[in-house]
């Protein structure tokens, strides 16, 4: 793995509610994301995970703390407007509601929107749009209107719109939450391909644990702090803790954990059905 791409130090964020009280969302958060990694951020609603995403893109400004993205201190008071936009170009965002992030009435026009804002030349935009369409597998829909597409397809168009800006990192802010299972699969496949084939750093914010299990690293946020951080197998072994903060674990881990509680001597960090079956068969192999 390569160098640190995002570094978050002692990050605090709070907002003032209607009654004038300060409501803390993130508390002294420390985090490092390596360039080229595929990271899932898990947490229940209100755990601060979407806030973190918006801070990295400076849609929100932190109360205190420091965020460095690609070597640039984006929380510096001397940040110029050009640097701000440079950061937004580097770190793309895909949001939850696929309908509310498409601007144009034609798919390819929408994908062109980002590069057009960056002042890229017409020929270069054309090329980037065609490449982006191919990457997300939407070439045949280039001239369609967004409202003719399914949720998963719209979300892939939104991703293409970000890719066309050539970012180094993409943050998916619950981009699969409103999709049906096939749409979710389409988007997850695209996300993984962007990371594996194009080396784009991915931060995937979700509350589906099976999606988190597909990533290299899982960060669990709770109450504005990092609760767990590690490989999916390591993180999901903490069954009790995850359940206590309102998250699920895969059923494979759950059943192994139940067996362990009953006193069966068994490893519980098995995320896939096959690994889990192997582990259970071992029991019977030994007993035979």
């Amino acid at each position, binding site marked *: 793995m390569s160098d640190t791409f995002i570094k978050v130090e002692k990050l605090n964020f709070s907002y003032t509610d209607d009654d004038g009280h300060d409501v803390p969302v993130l508390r002294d958060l420390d985090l490092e994301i390596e360039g080229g990694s595929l990271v899932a951020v898990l947490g229940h609603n209100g755990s601060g995970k979407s806030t973190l995403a918006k801070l990295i893109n400076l849609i929100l400004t932190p109360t205190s703390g420091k965020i460095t993205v690609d070597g640039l201190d984006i929380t510096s008071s001397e940040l110029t407007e050009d640097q701000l*936009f440079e950061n937004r170009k580097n770190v793309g965002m895909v949001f939850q509601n696929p309908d509310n992030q*498409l*601007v144009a*009435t034609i798919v390819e026009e929408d994908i062109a929107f980002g590069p057009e804002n960056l002042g890229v030349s017409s020929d270069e935009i054309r090329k980037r749009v065609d490449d982006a369409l191919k990457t997300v597998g939407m070439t045949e829909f280039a001239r369609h209107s967004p409202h003719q597409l399914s949720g998963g397809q719209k979300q892939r168009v939104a991703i293409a719109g970000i890719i066309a*800006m050539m970012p180094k990192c993409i943050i998916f802010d619950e981009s699969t939450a409103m999709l049906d299972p096939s749409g979710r699969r389409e988007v997850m496949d695209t996300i993984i391909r962007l990371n594996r084939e194009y080396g784009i750093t991915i931060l995937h914010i979700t509350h589906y644990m099976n999606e988190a299990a597909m990533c290299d690293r899982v960060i669990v946020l709770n109450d504005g702090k990092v609760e767990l951080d590690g490989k999916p197998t390591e993180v999901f072994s903490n069954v009790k803790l995850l359940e206590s903060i309102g998250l699920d674990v895969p059923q494979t881990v759950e059943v192994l954990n139940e067996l362990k509680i009953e006193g069966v001597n068994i490893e519980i960090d098995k995320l896939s059905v096959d690994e889990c079956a192997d582990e259970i068969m071992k029991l019977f192999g030994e007993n035979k």
Partner: protein
Amino acid sequence: MIKDITLGQFFPGNTVVHKLDPRMKIILTIAYIVSIFLAKNMWSFIAVVASALLLVIVSKISFKTILKSMKPLIFVLAFTTFFNLFWTTGDVLLISFWKINIYLEGVVFSVMMILRITSLLVGTTVLLTYTTSPIMLTDALERLLSPLRLIKLPVHEFSMMMTIALRFIPTLVEETDKIMSAQKARGADFESGSLMRRAKALIPILIPLFISAFRRADDLATAMECRCYRGGDGRTRMTKLKLALRDFGAIILMAAFITGIVFLNLTPCPISM
């Protein structure tokens, strides 16, 4: 159902009319409207009607569609005909009964008015809305009006607003349908009662619709910011509009057409306005 209403109808195609530069089409449409109002006698009117028919044929839009689009116009046509027929006075009295006199001039005037309005409608819809995608139209409008930026008119902002409106109309129409069904499921009744009651019954639809529209606007603004949108300055465009040979051909044809109309107007003709 509301969903069936088609907005900003556009029929994709590959004809010469479709391929014309949208900026040129706007200019041509304006020129065409002028030529229609220049027509004064029978010869020039025949030329105007023929040109409208020719446009329909060349653009391969079916006559059925054209006739359908005329439907809302029937009332306007009937109205103007009514006035022209009964209130125009002249030398040749055709029919006279009770207090009503119909003159030949009135008949001529009515017919020409009908031809003028229908040609106007057919010409503009075929040249513009039916054969040009809405995004091309707003794009062309932005480029044509761009000199106005010098006098601080927000041309780019205006066309951005148009694009976003076009993008969200189908979404909001669908949403209205959904909210309506949801309130119907709660026993809301939109079909019966006095006008007042029916207006009140719309509240459960309008409030959620407004709230949703604001939420969407908010989301969209954030998404646009994230895609580095900062107004029209420094923005480039993917589609380059370049005038082709056919665009010059079209303008020459239009110039010839207008000259022809003027010439025909001067030709002696038994029927004229």
